[in-house]
């Protein structure tokens, strides 16, 4: 593993919302103060519940959304400074796989034509080799050669997701943002796509930002994990540490409330986190998690706890942070 390929510094995105007809716009921060790095060959998992800002983060890392504060650096260049044709050339190196395999493919064009787009735009291969390259890509993601002539509606969800991955791979990217790529798929199909992503990461030395709410999949696939809550990172570190002995109480709650095939000793009721995600329009003072936290104390309301290092490369934003072994079967 070399140095970081993608770096985010103090990333924040504000969606001001007006309340009522005459109300003044109020700040609604979807993402706040996020620092991230992704290295080549590394898969960084972003987990969190809906509304925690993980998709917004993914779009900003891709340069699809402009951050309100902070910056994203790709291979040493600030995405905000690169414009026009140069920006489009840079786009070759970063690709995205979307959640909904039914919405992410153009229903009116054949699968082969959509995979070939990237090849044509960036002149990846000479034009007489395009058909050959499309076949190679479809084969790489495990689709049959005759599928290139078909249109997206003739495929099942898992096959479409393979097409979307083939399209993303066509430009030979260095960095892929996968926004919930397996959430819409059936369990048996999900395993196919997860295996495919693991193979590709190894074969192509890809840097990947894998956004998901499914902790089992993230744990299986990712080297490093970022846990988000209400737009902020609450814990970040190696997968084994974060999911093995989580330091932040939210990570613990998330792990404990995720259903498991293996029955656990404690009854379900004892592991349930009370309450719901606070509104981002009106976030609690201090630690955003304190309203639901089982170990909160008055000091938590004072200030937003900084991400403090636990061990090498492992940080948590909690004044009472500390590794706790939880009753999750290995």
């Amino acid at each position, binding site marked *: 593993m070399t140095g970081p390929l993608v770096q985010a510094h103090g990333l924040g995105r504000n969606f001001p919302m007006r309340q009522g007809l005459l109300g003044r716009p109020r700040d609604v921060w979807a993402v706040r103060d996020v620092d991230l790095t992704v290295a080549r060959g590394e898969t960084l998992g972003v987990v969190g519940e809906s509304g925690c800002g993980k998709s917004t983060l993914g779009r900003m890392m891709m340069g*699809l959304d402009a951050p309100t504060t902070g910056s994203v650096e790709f291979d040493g260049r600030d995405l905000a400074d690169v414009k026009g044709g140069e920006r489009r050339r840079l786009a070759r190196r970063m690709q995205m796989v979307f959640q909904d395999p039914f919405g992410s493919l153009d229903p009116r064009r054949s699968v082969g034509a959509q995979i070939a787009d990237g090849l044509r735009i960036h002149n990846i291969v000479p034009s007489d080799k395009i058909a050959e390259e499309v076949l190679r890509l479809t084969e790489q993601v495990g689709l049959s050669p005759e599928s290139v002539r078909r249109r997206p509606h003739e495929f099942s969800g898992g096959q479409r997701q393979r097409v979307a991955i083939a399209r993303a791979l066509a430009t030979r990217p260095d960095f892929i943002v996968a926004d919930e790529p397996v959430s819409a798929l059936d369990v048996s199909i999900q395993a196919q796509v997860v295996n495919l992503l693991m193979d590709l990461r190894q074969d192509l030395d890809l840097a990947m930002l894998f956004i998901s709410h499914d902790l089992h999949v993230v744990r299986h696939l990712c080297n490093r994990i970022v846990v988000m809550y209400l737009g902020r990172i609450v814990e970040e570190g190696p997968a084994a540490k974060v999911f093995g002995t989580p330091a932040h109480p939210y990570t613990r709650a998330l792990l404990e409330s995720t259903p498991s095939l293996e029955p656990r000793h404690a009854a379900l009721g004892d592991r349930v986190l009370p309450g719901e995600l606070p509104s981002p329009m009106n976030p609690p003072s201090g630690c955003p998690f304190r309203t639901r936290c089982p170990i909160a104390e008055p000091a938590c309301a004072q200030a937003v706890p900084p991400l403090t290092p636990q061990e090498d490369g492992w940080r948590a934003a909690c004044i009472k942070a500390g590794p706790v072994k939880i009753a999750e079967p290995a």
Partner: protein
Amino acid sequence: MNRAQRKLILPTAIAAIIAALVLLAPFLPLADVRLMDIPGRFSAPSSEHWLGQDEFGRDVLSRLIWGGRASLFIAIGSALAAAVIGTTLGLLGGFFRGFVEVITVRFSEVILCLPPLLLALLVVTILGAGTWPLILALTLLYTPNYARVVYAATLQVRSLDFVTAQTAMGAHPVQILARTVLPNILPPLLVQMSLVVASAMVIESGLSFLGLGVVPPTPSWGLMIRAARGAMEQQWLLLVWPSLALAGTILTFNLLCDRLQSALDPRGVTGGGALWLRRGRNAPAPTPVAKVAAEADALLRVEDMSIRLHAETGMIELVRGVSFTVMPGETRAIVGESGSGKTLTGLALTGLLPDVLSISGGRALFNTRDGTQVDLSKLDEDAFRTLRGREVSMVFQDAAAALNPVLRIGEQLGEAIRAHNDIDDAALNKRVVALLRQVGLPDPESRVRSYPHELSGGQRQRAMIAVAVANEPRLLIADEPTTALDPTIQAQILTLFQTLKDETEGMGLIFVTHDLAVVAEIADQVTVMYAGEVVEEGPVDQVFARPRHPYTAALIASVPEGGADRLVAIPGTVPTPHNMPPGCRFAPRCDHAIAACSAAMPDIERPAPDRRTRCIRWEEVT
């Protein structure tokens, strides 16, 4: 050639004949349109003049064809010109937004504020009558219509993932507009096109009729109508011909655009047609509630139930021979992938199957509160209404869609209670608040007055559950009730189901889900379904500890839990109902399949007294 393409033949043929006639007019053996024959004026159709002669004795047929040349040229020409300009403006405005939107779409909207006929009159008055000023006037008139339609469609399409994917790929905006956005906004564009051509023909005729369009003696349909109006008493047929031509051409064009639109849709158009026009179903006639002396054991006993789809191509069996029982106080999970028939099974038990589906075999015996036994598969809608809520109740996946958005939570809950109880307002209110408190909705006294959109996803699901348990049903069917929820909220709702069951003695719960981990958390018994069939059944802990069907085993191994480096992926996909493999439906995807598997449908085997599996090799391979 598919159905949509076949339907194109008729309008295309008529349009081709019209086009050929007007285009080939100079070469056809037609009489000179200006050749007058005063003695023969107003003469009726004859072998020489097929459609008769007009007020100057000119040949009507020839004038009709040449007139169509002028009318169609103006209408289609201006419609096309307006389409090109308007589409460009709309695309640019919708895609780039901001400043571009102001100078394109908003600017063209100013034209929409002017009365159309006056605007056309203005242009024609300034530039003088004639073909080209008319085209210019009509183009100016219709450009904003296109711009608006295209702008709205572009706004919709640009936010879709596949357009974002093109941006992410580094495609040039012009390329994205031409290759991705434009083809996807074609349907509304074509509709607009057909409307504009029709309307342009009418306005052209109108202006020519007023003497501001085509200049005589050049024929046009509008001019012909104008001339014929004055001679209506002498020869009414003169009015009929151009009117017929006008109406026929407009209708043809509308039909062509409509059918073109459905032919261009890559997904193909389904048969369609009104529900009540569909063929009568040969489902067994609803029999009155079969009251049999109750056997006091199972709450629900489903035996060999099948569900069929009545498609145009014949009957398709979507669910085949499903059997299971639910004991009082028991939770049975029905688990399977999409297309396994698990949801249909749940819907069938509440009589909520869509109209095109029906139960085609088997029984579903349910023991009611008063000790009688009814067969749920034979009930009609009226009989079900008395059962629903009080005996059998259902919780859906999407609470946002299942709750009525314009009624307050308290009203919907009250409605459910009133359906089976006759109580006064004060008692009803107390009961509603108690129910909301029971399902753990915070601050129930004020939540009674909330609308569904004011609640969060988890709270809506709680409200849904409150509606479902309002009348203390004996059997609760929950269809993926936690799938759309976040992990911490899902855990809350699962706990709620558990508590409800503990509090309500003897209530059976059928929990339909695709999530094996949820099954492990909540259920006592599990039924695994695949491609419309039950493949395995038994107590949850036993089935998960030692699955006796290869599909269950593979499904469990494909869950990314535990330390395996590589997940076990089941190759291939679930077969579609049209293409069911012979014999065991899982055989084509099964690692252990042998020739005998595809020979015949495997029988149910019993590895243990309370276990069932539909695999002929269960002893060797599991």
